[in-house]
C-alpha cells in the first residue's frame, strides 16, 4: 500500500469520528499556537530593542566620571571632576578609537518668539558628535571647532525641538534665547526616533561644550559629564586602551579604583538581547509543555481507538493487510491529526500575534524558522506518540482480533 492510499485511508477513519478527532487535535492546536505567538512576541521585542540600541551609533564606548568622595563621604557617580576634554583629545589619538566627543549636560528653558520650551536633553559637545552618534543633518550645518574654541553662542536643534519652537517655519538662522543668552540656530538634526529607554531623542539642543560649560553653567572648570567614544571596530580593545590611558592620565596607582566608568554599547545590547532571548526560550518551553500534553492526548486516543477497532484490524489482516500496512495506517492517523492541528495552530498563533501587536502595540515577528520548527514539531509529536499505539495494532493476532468482543 502506498503512502497516498494510506493517507486517504487515515483521513477517512478520522472523519468517521469528527468530534473525537477535533478534541484530540485541540491540545496540539493550543500548543503550536502558543509557541508561535510567544516566540513572535519575544522576537518582536528583541528586534525592537536592537533597533533602538542601534540608533545610539555603532561601536559606542561611553566614559563617565566616577564618584568623588571627601572624608569618607561619597558624592555619588559622576561627581568626580577629573574627566576633561583633554582626556577626550588624548583618547582620540588611540589606535583603536575612531572619534571622541565630550558631552556636558544641562537643562534650561528656551524662548523663541512667543514659544517657550524645556527640551529633554541639552548637551554641549564638539563637531565629532555627529560622527560618533552616526547622526545626519536635516537642514543647515553643525557648529565647528572654531565655535568650540571661541565659546560661540550657536546651537543645533533636534527635529522635535525645532518643530515646537518654530511651527510651520524653518529654524535655521533664527535666534533662540537660552537663559536669556541669544543663540543662533545653525541647523536641524535628522529624526532619530525613540531611544531604548523610551526617550524622544529628537527633543534635543546641541551647543559647543565650552559655551554650555562657561556661559550656561557659569563654571570655571573644564571637566565634562561624559566622553562619547566611537571605536574603530574592536570595542573591547578600545575600552581596554581607554582604561589604561585614563588611569595613566589621572595618575591612579596600581590596585586603586578608577575615577571613571566605562560602558560599551555592546554590553548594554548583549544584556538586553540576552534577557529577551532567555524570555523567548522560557516562553517557548512553557508552550512546548502543552505540546507534549497534546501529544499524550493523541497517544491516549489512539490507544483507545486501536482497542475499539480490534476487529477492523483483524479483518484487514484477514483480507491481506501486512503488519506494516496496519502500522502505517495508525501512524498516519496520528500524524495526520497532529499535522492538521499544527497547521491550525500556526494560523491561530499568527492571528494571535497579529492581534497582540495591534491592540497592545507590542511588536511581533513571526519568523519562517519558528513556523518551520513548529511544523516539524507537530509532525514529530504525531509520529512519536502515534508509534506505540500503531505498533500495538500491528502486533495483533488476526485470529484473536477477529474474535474480539
Amino acid at each position, binding site marked *: 500500500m502506498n503512502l497516498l492510499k494510506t493517507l486517504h485511508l487515515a483521513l477517512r477513519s478520522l472523519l468517521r469520528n469528527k468530534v473525537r478527532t477535533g478534541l484530540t487535535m485541540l491540545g496540539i492546536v493550543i500548543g503550536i499556537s502558543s509557541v508561535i505567538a510567544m516566540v513572535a512576541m519575544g522576537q518582536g521585542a528583541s528586534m525592537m530593542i536592537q533597533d533602538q540600541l542601534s540608533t545610539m551609533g555603532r561601536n559606542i564606548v561611553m566614559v563617565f566620571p566616577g564618584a568623588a568622595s571627601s572624608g569618607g563621604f561619597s558624592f555619588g557617580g559622576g561627581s568626580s571632576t577629573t574627566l576633561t576634554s583633554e582626556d577626550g583629545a588624548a583618547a582620540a589619538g588611540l589606535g583603536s578609537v575612531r572619534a571622541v566627543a565630550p558631552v556636558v549636560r544641562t537643562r534650561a528653558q528656551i524662548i523663541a518668539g512667543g514659544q517657550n520650551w524645556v527640551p529633554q536633553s541639552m548637551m554641549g559637545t564638539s563637531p565629532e558628535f555627529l560622527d560618533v552618534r552616526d547622526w545626519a543633518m536635516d537642514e543647515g550645518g553643525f557648529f565647528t571647532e572654531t565655535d568650540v574654541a571661541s565659546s560661540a553662542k550657536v546651537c543645533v536643534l533636534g527635529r522635535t525641538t525645532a518643530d515646537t519652537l518654530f511651527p510651520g517655519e524653518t529654524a535655521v538662522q533664527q535666534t533662540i534665547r537660552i537663559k536669556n543668552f541669544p543663540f543662533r540656530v545653525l541647523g536641524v538634526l535628522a529624526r532619530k526616533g525613540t531611544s531604548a529607554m523610551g526617550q524622544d531623542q529628537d527633543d534635543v539642543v546641541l551647543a559647543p561644550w565650552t559655551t554650555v560649560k562657561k556661559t550656561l553653567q557659569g563654571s570655571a572648570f573644564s571637566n565634562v559629564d561624559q566622553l562619547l567614544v566611537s571605536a574603530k571596530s574592536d570595542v573591547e580593545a578600545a575600552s581596554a586602551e581607554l582604561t589604561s590611558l585614563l588611569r595613566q592620565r589621572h595618575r591612579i596607582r596600581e590596585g586603586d579604583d578608577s575615577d571613571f566608568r566605562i560602558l560599551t554599547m555592546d554590553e548594554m545590547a548583549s544584556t538586553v538581547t540576552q534577557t529577551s532571548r532567555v524570555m523567548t526560550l522560557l516562553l517557548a518551553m512553557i508552550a512546548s509543555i502543552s505540546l507534549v500534553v497534546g501529544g499524550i492526548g493523541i497517544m491516549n486516543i489512539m490507544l483507545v481507538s486501536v482497542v475499539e477497532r480490534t476487529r477492523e484490524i483483524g479483518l484487514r*489482516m484477514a483480507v*491481506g493487510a501486512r503488519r506494516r*500496512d496496519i502500522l502505517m495506517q495508525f501512524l498516519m492517523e496520528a500524524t495526520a491529526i497532529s499535522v492538521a492541528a499544527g497547521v491550525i495552530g500556526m494560523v491561530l498563533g499568527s492571528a494571535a500575534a497579529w492581534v497582540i501587536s495591534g491592540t497592545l502595540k507590542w511588536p511581533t515577528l513571526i519568523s519562517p524558522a519558528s513556523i518551520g520548527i513548529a511544523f516539524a514539531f507537530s509532525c514529530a509529536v504525531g509520529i512519536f506518540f502515534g508509534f506505540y499505539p500503531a505498533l500495538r495494532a500491528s502486533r495483533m493476532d*488476526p485470529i484473536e482480533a477477529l474474535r474480539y468482543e
Partner: protein
Amino acid sequence: MTAQISLRNVGKIYHLGEVDIRPLQDVSLDIGAGEFVAIMGASGSGKTTLMNVIGCMDRPTEGRYLLEGTEVSTLSGDELARVRNRKFGFVFQSFNLLARTAALENVELPLLYWNDLPGRERRKRAEAALARVGLSDRMGHHPSQLSGGQQQRVAIARALVNEPAIVLADEPTGNLDSASEREIVALLHELNAAGITVVLVTHNPEIGAHAKRLIRIRDGRIVEGA
C-alpha cells in the same frame, strides 16, 4: 492432478505452561477445485482451527499444506497475507463490516492491499461485486441501515471482490433468521455453481446438508469425509 487444497498429517499444538493443547491432530484432507464442502463438528472440536489453517490465517505446527501445489505452511506472515488476499474470500458469522462506512467502501477493502488499482477501478469492481449479491441499490448504505441478511451479503460481496478461488464461510448464517439463512445458502450455491470452491464451517446439520460433501471433525481429528 493434485487437489486444490491438500493437507497431509497436519497438526497444531499450543503449549500452555505444562499442558499441550492439540486442537488439530494428524489431519489429512484433499479438497478439489469447485467443491462445496461443509466442515461440521461441535464447538471445541477443532473445526475453526482447521478453517484458519486452510485459510492461511494460522500456520500448522506439523505436517504439510499444499495450496494449488505450493507449500504454504512455511511461508512468512507477509507472504501468507498475500495468499489470503489473492486466493481466499472470508465470510464471518458476525459479518465484520466497518461501522459508519458505506457498503461500497466495505467491499473495496481487500482491493486496498497488494495492488495498485486506481480508485475508479476499485469502485467499479466493488459495484460489480455488490450487483452480484443483489445489492446494487444499497451501495451507499451504512451497515446500521441494512438488515442482517443484507449485511452478510455485503460481506460476501467483499469476499468476492478479489475474484478468489476459494470462499471460506465460518458459520455464515449463525446470526440470521431462517429467511435470510436461505438467501445466504442460495447465494453460496450460486457462487459454487460459478466454479468457486466453497468451504463452509457450521455446527448446524441443516446447513451442512446443503453441501455436496460433509467432513466431520471431533477432538481435532477427522472422523468422516476425509
